[in-house]
């Protein structure tokens, strides 16, 4: 499958209030191509609640229910139950949330909905920050990254949300990246075909949040995967299968590129390079990434 083979259907219609180069909009555009118009979205507070545009207009061509920050998965549970009662169980319920609404404030409602086997798709577009509120740290923010609340760089490593999701033993989970639209499309399509709770996380490099040029969104995504800072995989029947470049890195068929190749293009890490290179912290990031990959190899090879 190539990009040209994606359906022509567009559910993101003109009038979107997204920043230029926005990865969330790109990810949602592909997602809705895969889900089609028989979809209802539940959106908590996140960039998408701005992107969808101002009342009384909308830039989305599917029904959308906005809901409070921590409530996406619970709100979606209600929508799903109501649809089922009305004989509309074939409509896909999509909770579409950022990493703040997923890793942090919304994790309880998400865990509850997964445990209850709610028949819905929860997608987290992960730009590794609270971007809608102006770039504050989240549980997904990587170590040493500048945010407005980690001015000298974050002092902790990000949590592994994927592993938390797997602990719920749901029928399907996946990690994708906006730089690989065909892969994202296939994963969303597969999620749509499976009953029960599905979770997909999309790496979403954010130009204003990460401080890189708006034309480099896709490149930053590709580099996130090639450096091993992000992984592409599917989780099905309690088994994790890496795919794309992540599979090659896992199997040591290619070397992961140094993280430095990725972070040096992002203004949020500029304090690691200027005025003097912070070799210690860069090494810590590389070492931590190696440790993660060693764990992946032990678990998934």
């Amino acid at each position: 499958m190539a990009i040209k083979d994606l359906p022509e259907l567009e559910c993101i219609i003109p009038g979107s209030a997204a920043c230029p180069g926005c990865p969330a909009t790109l990810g949602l555009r592909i997602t809705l191509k895969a889900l089609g118009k028989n979809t209802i979205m539940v959106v908590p507070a996140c960039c998408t609640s701005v992107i969808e545009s101002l009342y009384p207009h909308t830039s989305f061509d599917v029904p959308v229910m906005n809901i409070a920050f921590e409530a996406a998965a619970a709100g979606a549970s209600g929508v799903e139950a109501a649809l089922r009662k009305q004989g509309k169980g074939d409509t896909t319920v999509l909770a579409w949330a950022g990493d703040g609404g997923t890793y942090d404030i919304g994790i309880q409602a998400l865990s509850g909905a997964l445990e209850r086997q709610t028949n819905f798709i929860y997608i987290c577009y992960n730009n590794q920050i609270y971007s809608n509120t102006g770039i504050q740290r989240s549980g997904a923010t990587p170590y040493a990254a500048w945010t407005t609340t980690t001015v000298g760089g974050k002092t902790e490593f990000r949590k592994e949300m994927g592993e938390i999701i797997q602990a719920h033993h749901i029928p399907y989970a996946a990690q994708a990246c906006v730089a690989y639209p065909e892969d994202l499309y296939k994963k969303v399509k597969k999620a749509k075909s499976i009953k029960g709770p599905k979770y997909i996380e999309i790496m979403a490099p954010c130009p204003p949040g990460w401080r890189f040029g708006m034309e480099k969104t896709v490149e930053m995504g590709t580099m996130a995967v090639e450096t091993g800072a992000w992984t592409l995989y599917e989780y099905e029947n309690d088994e994790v299968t890496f795919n794309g470049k992540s599979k090659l890195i896992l199997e040591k068929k290619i070397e992961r590129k140094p993280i430095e190749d990725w972070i040096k293009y992002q203004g949020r890490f500029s304090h690691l390079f200027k005025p003097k290179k912070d070799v210690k912290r860069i090494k810590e990031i590389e070492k931590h990434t190696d440790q993660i990959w060693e764990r992946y190899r032990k678990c998934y090879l």
Partner: protein
Amino acid sequence: MTIMIDTGNYIAAKAAVMAKPDVVAAYPITPQTTLVEGIANYVKSGEFKGEYICVESEHSAMSACIGASAAGVRTFTGTSSHGLLLMHEMLHWAALARLPIVMCNINRVIGPGWNIWTDENDSISQRDTGWIQFYCSSNQEIFDTVIQSFRLAENEKVLLPVMINYNAFILSHTSMPAEIPEQKEIDGFLQKYKPKWKLDVKNPITFGNIILPADYEKIRKDMQNSSENAKKLIPEIAKEWKKKFGRYHGDLIEKYKCENADYILLAMGAIGAESKVAIDNLQKNGFKIGLARVRTFRPFPREEILKLGKQADLIVIDRNISVGLGGALFSEVKASLYGKSDAKVYDFIAGIGGKDVTYNDVETMCKKVVEGKAKDCEWYGLEGV
């Protein structure tokens, strides 16, 4: 019609199930637990045919009700005390989204320290969320009000959620007889819910997106207008209920022996029921005191209270305290009279933390006022002070 002798919670569960909601989402909390257990029993027996979502918190209970109601179905839940407080954000959300969710709240004390007895501070602290608030004084009234509340909430002139409050244990866990109409009679009174709008893939609308001040202001004004509409509808619905089922608990207020009264007592919830006994005894002993039991705290019965204030001096019992001001009912009553009536208003803060308030206590408070010994606002029966 059958007679059911059971607790307030089980009777509320019966009413909720007879209203045929499509979705119930709830989380257990003492003393609401037997309400959700009651509904779970009806799931098992097949009498409840809706979806029952056992969520992981009250915040999610209200969020799931919001999702279900927005998707176009009748929705019910129940909670109490800390559970209601955890819902707070979503109470606002439900009301602003104009979703006709119906909920029972069992009035329970807020911690610390942990205390499961009754007072009204939980629901009083939610008064500005846009929810209609009823306060019941018997299990029969709980049953009737739950059914009536769906009619009220779902009326296109209202479209506001409704909270039915009743006292922990005094009502929630005390068995009393209640007349239960046949299902077909309930179905005749409460038709199937037809939402004015809903999440619909055939009509893709975005609900609740960013809104500029001028439009937002209109939404708030419309809520206020709708609450005023509810004031007119509550008596109409009560009248229709009376005609169909022969029972009447009052409109926004329930007046009891107020004719020729020089003093009128105002109370809510179970103290309202206790007060009827007190009024009987006081009138037997020559005191010209009547009772107006306040059933709706929101919308607040301003006009009715003003009428009472033109007839008599008012004695208020508050089982709540708005710290920094005083009893919540007292301050609302005074605001209703301001500039339009010279009635004196006395307040007793009583029964806080679940302390029992008997009809003897109510008589003592009333006599203290008549004998000129009461202060404007005092705490009744405070020990060791």
